[in-house]
């Protein structure tokens, strides 16, 4: 069996962080080994854009403070009619969907073992790790008694009937797996040169030993964790759909179906790959690197197939339940559904099926962005727009503080992502960049 990051033998991997990376043995690998961006990037860490993002993150954290001191009622428009708002609809449900890049890339690169995609694994892994961390944080912010979150892990309180329990457990496990999968990167960065200053210097040796131990153990068991990650992802991506199945009288028939979990899973496949493409192109632009079209174009070729399957699951189910009639009337919900399908499925499928357009960064980026938007809108529809409680007519419109916190969290995620690619060997070392 191959090791996760490097099919050519994991032995050398551990030593890679410091000196010049050994040349990959494999002819098919076009890229250099991943390396931290500090000192190598074409752009500094702080740019005007990053400062704006940092400000947004700070504002979000202020809202978080207000929420902790004054309670949910002070910063949200949640009520007894709408118990779940955008913190669940966007931060959690959409967050989980968009973090699907981690397991889809792992599946394609490691399990199907397509060598060329290995270069995408680390960014996708980082996205997933940070994405899920923020999903967990988002949940905690929304929980009324966040300090009781550990109850979910207590066997005497396990509640196997609850789809949410399933989601919670899987996310916990998957987050652990993600951290474990990320550990080799940390090891790679620090192993062999742990050098803490001053008083902490005494810890250097034990830390070094720990890193070596971790690295060796993980190197041997990484395949297990990779498969585990995919299984856990499939489980909770689908269970996230099961969540709303319990409210047949509240979730609009355009979305409520017994196969909602299947639809969530299928859309997660499609959006996972799209997110990798989207992110890679975005990062290239932001870091002034050349887009990795040679990897992204073939990866994007799979997206139309996945989208078609997802669309088929949607349409066959609709025909089966006869819910077409809800599209005949012009309403917020019928429009939202149509946008979700046209922008999120039809147009990107059309673009990505074209051999020519797929190889143009702008088109590829647009198509990937549309898929991401479409699936995100689907989650938003299922959790917010399509949620039609029986009593009361007051619509839920999120408070500006709610929006600010969500935006702040996303900003914080972007910031940390940037920090990580500057600190850790995530993105491949560009041949061209070295000479700049």
């Amino acid at each position, binding site marked *: 069996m191959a090791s996760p990051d490097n099919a050519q033998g994991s032995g050398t991997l551990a030593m890679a962080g410091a000196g010049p990376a050994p040349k990959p043995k494999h002819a098919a690998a076009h890229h250099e080994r991943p390396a931290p961006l500090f000192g190598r990037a074409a752009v500094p860490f702080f740019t005007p854009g990053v400062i704006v993002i940092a400000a947004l993150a700070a504002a979000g954290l202020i809202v978080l403070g207000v929420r902790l001191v004054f309670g949910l009622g002070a910063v949200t428009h949640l009520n007894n009619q709408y118990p779940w708002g955008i913190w669940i609809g966007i931060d959690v449900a959409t967050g989980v969907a968009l973090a699907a890049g981690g397991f889809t890339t792992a599946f394609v690169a490691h399990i199907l073992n397509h060598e060329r995609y290995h270069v995408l694994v680390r960014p996708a892994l980082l996205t997933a790790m940070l994405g899920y961390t923020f999903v967990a944080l988002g949940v905690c912010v929304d929980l009324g008694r966040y300090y009781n979150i550990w109850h979910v892990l207590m066997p005497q309180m396990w509640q196997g009937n609850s789809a949410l329990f399933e989601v919670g457990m899987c996310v916990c496990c998957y987050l652990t797996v993600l951290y474990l999968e990320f550990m080799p990167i940390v090891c790679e960065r620090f192993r062999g040169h742990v050098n803490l200053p001053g008083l902490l210097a005494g810890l250097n040796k034990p830390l070094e030993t720990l890193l070596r131990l971790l690295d060796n153990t993980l190197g041997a068991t990484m395949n297990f964790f990779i*498969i585990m990650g995919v299984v856990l992802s499939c489980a909770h991506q689908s269970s996230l759909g099961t969540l709303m199945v319990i409210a047949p009288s509240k979730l609009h028939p355009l979305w409520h179906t017994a196969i909602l979990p299947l639809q969530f899973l299928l859309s997660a496949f499609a959006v996972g790959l799209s997110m990798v493409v989207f992110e890679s192109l975005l990062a290239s632009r932001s870091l002034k690197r050349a887009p990795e079209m040679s990897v992204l174009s073939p990866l994007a070729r799979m997206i139309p197939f996945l989208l078609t399957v997802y669309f088929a699951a949607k349409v066959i189910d609709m025909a089966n339940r006869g819910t077409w009639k809800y599209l005949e009337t012009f309403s917020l919900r019928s429009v939202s559904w149509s946008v979700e399908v046209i922008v999120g499925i039809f147009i990107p499928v059309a673009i990505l099926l074209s051999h020519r357009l797929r190889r143009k960064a702008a088109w590829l980026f647009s198509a990937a962005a549309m898929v991401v938007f479409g699936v995100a809108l689907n989650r938003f529809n299922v959790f917010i727009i399509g949620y039609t409680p029986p009593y*009361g007519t007051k619509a839920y419109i999120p408070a500006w503080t709610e929006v600010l916190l969500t935006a702040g969290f996303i900003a914080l995620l972007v910031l940390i992502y940037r920090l990580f690619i500057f600190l850790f060997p995530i993105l491949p070392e560009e041949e061209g960049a070295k000479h700049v």
Partner: protein
Amino acid sequence: MVTRREFLKYTGVAAGTAALAATGAEASAGKTHLDPERIGVLADLTLCIGCRRCEWGCAEQNKLPHGTLQSYDDLTVLKEERRPDETRLTVINRYPAPTWREQPLDVKVQCLHCEKPACVSACIVGALEKNPKGPVTYDAWKCIGCRYCMVACPFQIPAYEYDNALTPKVMKCTLCSERTLKDGKQPACVEICPREALVYGKREQLLELAHERINQRPDRYHPEVMGEHTVGGTSWLLLGDRPATEYGIPELPNQSPAVLTETIQHGVFRGFTGPLMIFGLLSVLMKSSTDKRKPGEGDDQDGEDHHG
């Protein structure tokens, strides 16, 4: 090109999934853990005069903010449809008489204590529980405040203390389980009801009584007892002069919404067969793909865009 191996691979997945769906259907035929002697309340809405005594009694019992008993004599509040919330666990709503000749119908709204409650099925830590004796109880200590119960409840009953920053609770009627099950008393609302429009007793006997009344006065009652079958039955039984959908109860099937989700959940996760199968499948896939791509063999299938 579909290789023989790949074809087998895919059919394997399909068969596995179909098998899972089948086990799921099995799981839905759940056994009930409910006590045949379990208690309930019969609310004869045609006897209710909307005096709001029950609202007062409930607030008093649950130590919720409330005025004097006399302050509840104000019946103007009945003009607008109200909902139970975190400050009042039960309210009376008045539904106008269909014609001037008939009486309006006063309807008491509170948690109906489903026989197969969706909120209990949804609760992630088991803070909400269906007591075999009838009440759906809440343990605030266990609660993490996810409010999934509120999403799940088809009657939109649980309310939340959003303004409580540290120890917010889910608020709903608990059928006075402290009074009823421990002290053997009647629920506060039942005890105070001046006309005994509310009758507390064993659910089975109450059902019998309800049908007896319907049979005696078919002109007075709608022939269906709300709560006998709806969402799998509820501990509260409502007798009205019109269909339940005409006095504020949503149109709901006779099956608890929890049955479908539990079927899916247990279908997929029973004995972890589903995840284990996927795990096995992926292992085989990983092994085979690694074997196939021995160094030197290269990527031969996705040959697009190799060199521009």
